[in-house]
Structure formats: structure tokens, C-alpha cells
């Protein structure tokens, strides 16, 4: 026991069923900003933080992933069990376990509590979400529950911070001894535990005589309906896409105006020359080519946060279970795949909730095909070019919806093929899904999470994208020959030459050397595609100075082949979109896949397969499309 010395920190673990509110409690106690959501499986790794009790004792707090039992088979459940035993690398054996239970689902959550008590550790039970339980008519008696279990019980509402002080006081040093019921129960099996749970609930948690339909039950009648549920799901998804395009227009206009102001100010300050070109075309053009899509990124994360926090995500997983099972996956794979819409890295990590190793591998393999937020700047640049300015935002939303659907459907088809190739699982696998009651979104956590994502996007634009934009500008400017016009100078530059080498490879996809070069540079980071286009299309033949300062979208819309044909035709734009839907251009994702799949071969194979698939799909789209258009 590490914490028995007066000066040392005591180690306390937070353990409980998925969606009991452990991470919310962890954030409330430590002031951290760990991701929370109203569905099972949000946390798949252990987190560490610290705080002081009112008595001045330092507590080292370990938040473990949710688990239904200490005998679970999935990787996240194994992490939880190992954390409780003190077997996790870099952590001490715990001095006390705080078991977080959802008061509204006491019968199910008490099973794990009894298993933890059986270990003989000092235990404090947190009875979370008491308000939800009492609103549902449950009459809870924490004192009786404490007497029945033989450990302290603290009623709480972790999302509002209610009961925090009482919990900290319950963690008074020296910690309470292990439960006195331990000896009697230590050899208890599942059936014994079940009988004991029923007896405890009979005494300490009395249900109303008649089952009342809660608001969640009434909403679920529609949202889980075999037909209406799907209509609602499609409507929610379409509404999110539409809102992203509609609401982002005004702030995007502000950012574009800011770009114009900054560029104009720099042009007024610096004489015409290479330094001015570097700052205006390279640095400002490259960074703003990405930064302009910040409002859409913020809106996407805001809507994902709302869906996660309200409890709708678990319903979506329930609806998707049928489709997932046709693809050889279970509903458990839906949540990691949905997480990948934000970023494939947490999505790949979230596959730890899947206990079947083969299903987990298949899910990891296809997760990067769920369009992540890094692709959005590319989509938002290309999609409006497919439409006339007068056409409404709902058409853009439909195209974005189709982009997401294309990635998702392909991912499921490939998952099916992989599952067939990998073979069946040994033993029977079952999928249990907890449907939490709907709740008001936790705005504080949503805003903190969105702000964190927005800052990460701005930081990336101001560091990596800025640096790459400077390098791209240098490559597209040097070696320079005096007396050439801008277009010839670009063709003579290192990047221009690279473009001419690449052009034969990418021409069958409808791209010229400049687009091919921009695609190639975006293997460093997808957003660099926009910056590369801003640098490569900074000057078009016959443009005046005023025109050359126009927005990136206008400039690439006006771009032509050397023979004067329009470069960005609808077919070329679709071919580009298809390439970006399928290509895996994210080194960090490959590194996480190698770690989670336990083999570099999977990461390399995934990269080669997806890059080849992207090329082939773009090729087919352009070549077949050319026959008709």
C-alpha cells in the first residue's frame, strides 16, 4: 500500500460499469477535461489525476475504463481489472477503490461492486445520478445500502458537483477497512451475488408499485422504432450537415475579410518582391486556406458533443446493430466508427471495447474510411465548386451527406470481406447495449471540448501548416530564372518540375501536375492540400494584381489546362473528392493502428491498401464519367 505513510499520496481508483459517470466524477475531483459522454465505452484507457481531501491528504486518482465484471474479456475491461489489482504499468496498487454506480440501474451495477468488495480492498460506493433515479420513482436509502454492503455509500450528482465534499470526507485517512461482509461472500459465485443484489435492492431501493413511462421511454418509442427510428436518424444526420454549411457562412466571411485586410496591410508595407510573395502568397494564403474552415470544424464538434452528451449515440448504436451484423461486426463497433468521424485515432483506440480480436482488427482496418475532421477543409473547398453560387446550402449538405455515406458504406463492405477472410470467432459473442436515460447536454464539458479542438486546429494551422506553407512556397519559387513570367517561373521551380513528373501518373484521374503535387504534399497532413493549392494557384495566366488577390476558391475555379480547357471540371472535382474519401494520409493514425493491432504489418498493409484503393476509385470515377460527360 503506497499511501500509508503520512507524506505520501494515497492511490484511489475509480471503477464502475460503463456510463456510470466515472470520468465526469474524475473531472469534477481533479479539474481535468477527460472526454465524457452519455453512452457506454467513452473511456477505454486509464487516466491519472490528483486532488487534496479537506484533511490535506493528497490523493492520486486513477480513472479506469468501464467494465461490467472483473472477468471481462475485452481489452478495456482487462485494463480496468489490472488497474484494480495494481498491475498497470506505472501505477501503484490502490489503497482504496471508489465504485461508481448509476442509482437508476442499481441492480446491474451492484454486481461489479460485490466483485470489488470481494477483493478485500477498502471501498467507497458513489451512488451517482440519484436525481434521475428518484425522478423515475425509485426510493433510495443510502444509509441502508451502506449497512447492507458494509462500506460507506455517498449519494451524488457528479455532473453538478453535488456530493463532492461528502465524497472527499469519506476518503478520510486512514481509509475504512475492507468490507466486513467479505469473509462471508468471498467464495460467492454469480448466482449468489444475484440473490444478494435482489435482497439489497429490496431493502434499500424500493421501486414504485406501477411501472411509469419516463420521458426517455416515450422518446425511445419513436427513436428506436424500426421505421421511424431510421427516419429520425437520417433527419438528425442531415440536419447536422445542413447546419454546418448554413451557420458557418457568416463567420467564414469574417475570416476571409480578415485575410484580405492582413494581405492588403502587408502589401502596403512591403515593396513588390520575393519577401512580399512569401508573406502574402505563402504564409497568409497557406494558413488562411485552412483557417477559413474553423467555423465548420467548431460546428461539427459541437453537434457530435450534443449527440454524445444527450444519450442519442447509444440509440444510434442500437439502430445500427442490424446493419453492422450484416457486415460481420456488432453494434459495439459502431461507436468506435462514429468516433472516427471526429478523428480516426480515438476511434481506433475505442475499438478496445470490442472483445472479439477478429472483429476488432476489422474495425481498426476500416475506421480511417469514416471521414475525419482533417478532411473537412478539403471537402469544404471542393463541394461549393460543384454548385452554382445561387444554389442553396441544402444541396451542399446533400453532397456532404453522400461523402460520409460513401466512406461508411465502403468501410462496412470491406469489413465484411475482412471478416470472411479472418474467419469466425471461437465461442459465442453477444452484444449488450446500455440505453441510458436522455439527459440535458453537459454544456460546460461540450464547450471545453470544442474549445480544445478549435485551439488544436488553430495551433496546427499556425505551426505545422505555416511551416509547410513556407516550404511549399520556397519549392514553388526556386530555382528562379530572371526574366521569366510568373507561370513559367512556377513551371521551372522544383515543385513545377515535380508536377511535370507526377502528371502522367495523375492525369488518368483528371488532375494536372499542380493538383497531383498538392495531393502528394497532403500526405504530410490532409489540410496541406488547401495550402498547396493556395501557393500553386497564386497566379493564373493573364490575371491582374487585383484578381490574383482574390479568394482561393475563385482562383482554382478559374484555373485552366495549357490548352485553355477548364481544369476543375465537375468530374475532376468528384474524382478529387473520391480520392480524399479513401486515401489514408495520416501518419499518426498509422502509428496508433500499429500499436493497437500489435503489428506494423497491419499499419503498412492498411496504408498501401487504402492508397491503392483511392487511386483506383478515382481512376474509375474519372474514366467512366468521361464516357458520359
Amino acid at each position, binding site marked *: 500500500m503506497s499511501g500509508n505513510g503520512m507524506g505520501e499520496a494515497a492511490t484511489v481508483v475509480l471503477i464502475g460499469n460503463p456510463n456510470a459517470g466515472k470520468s465526469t466524477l474524475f473531472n469534477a475531483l481533479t479539474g481535468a477535461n477527460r472526454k465524457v459522454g452519455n453512452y457506454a465505452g467513452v473511456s477505454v484507457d486509464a487516466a491519472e489525476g490528483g486532488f487534496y481531501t479537506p484533511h490535506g491528504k493528497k490523493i492520486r486518482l486513477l480513472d479506469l475504463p468501464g467494465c461490467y465484471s472483473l472477468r471481462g474479456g475485452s481489452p478495456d475491461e482487462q485494463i480496468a481489472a489490472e488497474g484494480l489489482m495494481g498491475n498497470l504499468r506505472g501505477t501503484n496498487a490502490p489503497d482504496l477503490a471508489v465504485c461508481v454506480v448509476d442509482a437508476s440501474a442499481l441492480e446491474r451495477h451492484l454486481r461489479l461492486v460485490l466483485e470489488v468488495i470481494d477483493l478485500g480492498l477498502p471501498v467507497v460506493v458513489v451512488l451517482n445520478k440519484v436525481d434521475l433515479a428518484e425522478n423515475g420513482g425509485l426510493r433510495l436509502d443510502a444509509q441502508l445500502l451502506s449497512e447492507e454492503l458494509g462500506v460507506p455509500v455517498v449519494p451524488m450528482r457528479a455532473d453538478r458537483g453535488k456530493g463532492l465534499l461528502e465524497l472527499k470526507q469519506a476518503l478520510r485517512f486512514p481509509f475504512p477497512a475492507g468490507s466486513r461482509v467479505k469473509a462471508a461472500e468471498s467464495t460467492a459465485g454469480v448466482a449468489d451475488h444475484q440473490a444478494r443484489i435482489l435482497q439489497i435492492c429490496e431493502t434499500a431501493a424500493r421501486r414504485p408499485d406501477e411501472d411509469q413511462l419516463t420521458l426517455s421511454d416515450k422518446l425511445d418509442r419513436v427513436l428506436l422504432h424500426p421505421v421511424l427510428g431510421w427516419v429520425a436518424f437520417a433527419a438528425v444526420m442531415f440536419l447536422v450537415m445542413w447546419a454546418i454549411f448554413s451557420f458557418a457562412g457568416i463567420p467564414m466571411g469574417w475570416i476571409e475579410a480578415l485575410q484580405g485586410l492582413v494581405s492588403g496591410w502587408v502589401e502596403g508595407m512591403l515593396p513588390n518582391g520575393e519577401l512580399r510573395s512569401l508573406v502574402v502568397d505563402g504564409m497568409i494564403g497557406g494558413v488562411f486556406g485552412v483557417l477559413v474552415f474553423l467555423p465548420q470544424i467548431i460546428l461539427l464538434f459541437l453537434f457530435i458533443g450534443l449527440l454524445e452528451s444527450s444519450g442519442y449515440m447509444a440509440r444510434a448504436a442500437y439502430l445500427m446493430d442490424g446493419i453492422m451484423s450484416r457486415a460481420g461486426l456488432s453494434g459495439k463497433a459502431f461507436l468506435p466508427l462514429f468516433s472516427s468521424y471526429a*478523428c480516426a485515432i480515438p476511434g481506433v483506440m475505442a475499438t478496445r471495447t470490442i472483445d472479439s480480436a477478429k472483429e476488432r482488427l476489422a474495425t481498426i482496418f476500416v475506421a480511417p474510411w469514416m471521414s475525419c475532421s482533417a478532411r473537412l477543409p478539403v471537402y469544404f473547398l471542393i463541394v461549393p465548386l460543384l454548385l452554382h453560387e445561387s444554389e442553396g446550402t441544402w444541396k451542399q449538405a446533400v453532397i456532404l451527406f453522400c461523402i460520409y455515406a460513401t466512406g461508411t458504406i465502403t468501410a462496412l463492405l470491406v469489413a465484411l470481406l475482412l471478416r470472411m477472410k479472418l474467419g469466425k470467432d471461437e465461442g459465442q459473442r453477444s452484444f449488450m447495449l446500455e440505453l441510458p436515460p436522455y439527459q440535458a447536454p453537459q454544456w460546460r464539458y461540450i464547450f471545453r471540448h470544442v474549445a480544445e479542438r478549435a485551439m488544436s486546429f488553430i495551433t496546427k494551422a499556425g505551426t505545422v501548416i505555416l511551416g509547410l506553407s513556407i516550404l511549399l512556397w520556397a519549392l514553388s519559387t526556386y530555382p528562379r530564372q530572371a526574366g521569366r513570367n510568373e507561370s513559367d517561373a512556377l513551371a521551372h521551380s522544383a515543385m513545377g518540375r515535380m508536377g511535370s513528373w507526377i502528371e502522367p501518373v495523375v492525369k488518368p484521374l483528371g488532375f494536372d501536375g499542380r493538383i497531383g503535387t498538392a495531393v502528394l504534399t497532403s500526405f504530410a497532413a490532409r489540410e496541406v492540400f488547401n495550402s498547396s493549392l493556395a501557393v500553386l494557384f497564386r497566379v493564373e495566366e493573364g490575371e491582374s494584381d487585383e484578381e490574383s488577390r482574390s479568394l482561393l476558391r475563385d482562383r482554382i475555379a478559374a484555373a485552366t489546362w495549357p490548352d485553355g480547357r477548364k481544369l476543375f471540371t465537375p468530374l475532376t472535382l468528384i474524382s478529387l473528392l473520391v480520392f480524399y474519401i479513401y486515401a489514408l494520409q495520416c501518419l499518426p493514425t498509422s502509428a496508433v493502428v500499429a500499436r493497437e493491432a500489435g503489428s506494423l504489418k497491419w499499419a503498412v498493409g492498411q496504408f498501401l491498401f487504402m492508397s491503392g484503393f483511392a487511386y483506383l476509385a478515382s481512376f474509375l470515377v474519372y474514366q467512366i464519367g468521361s464516357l458520359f460527360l
Partner: protein
Amino acid sequence: MNLQDIAVWTIVGLTIAIFAWRMFRSRSTRKPGCGGGCDCGKKR
């Protein structure tokens, strides 16, 4: 070489140096198993 050229080459040279330094630094200090992704380096 005029003043503008010197400024341009200083900026480009510094950028290359920073990228090289970051690559070297991230290789030598990255936590085992960390892919350097979105949530990497965040206190968990």
C-alpha cells in the same frame, strides 16, 4: 543578394531547421506507444 532575399532565406532556413529539430526531438522524447496523434501529449 538584396535585403529581401536575405529575409526570405532566413525564414525558409529557420523553418527547415525547426522541422528537423522537431523530428529529432519527437523521436527521442516520444512516449512508448504514442503515435503523436490528436490526443497525444494531453494529460490523461
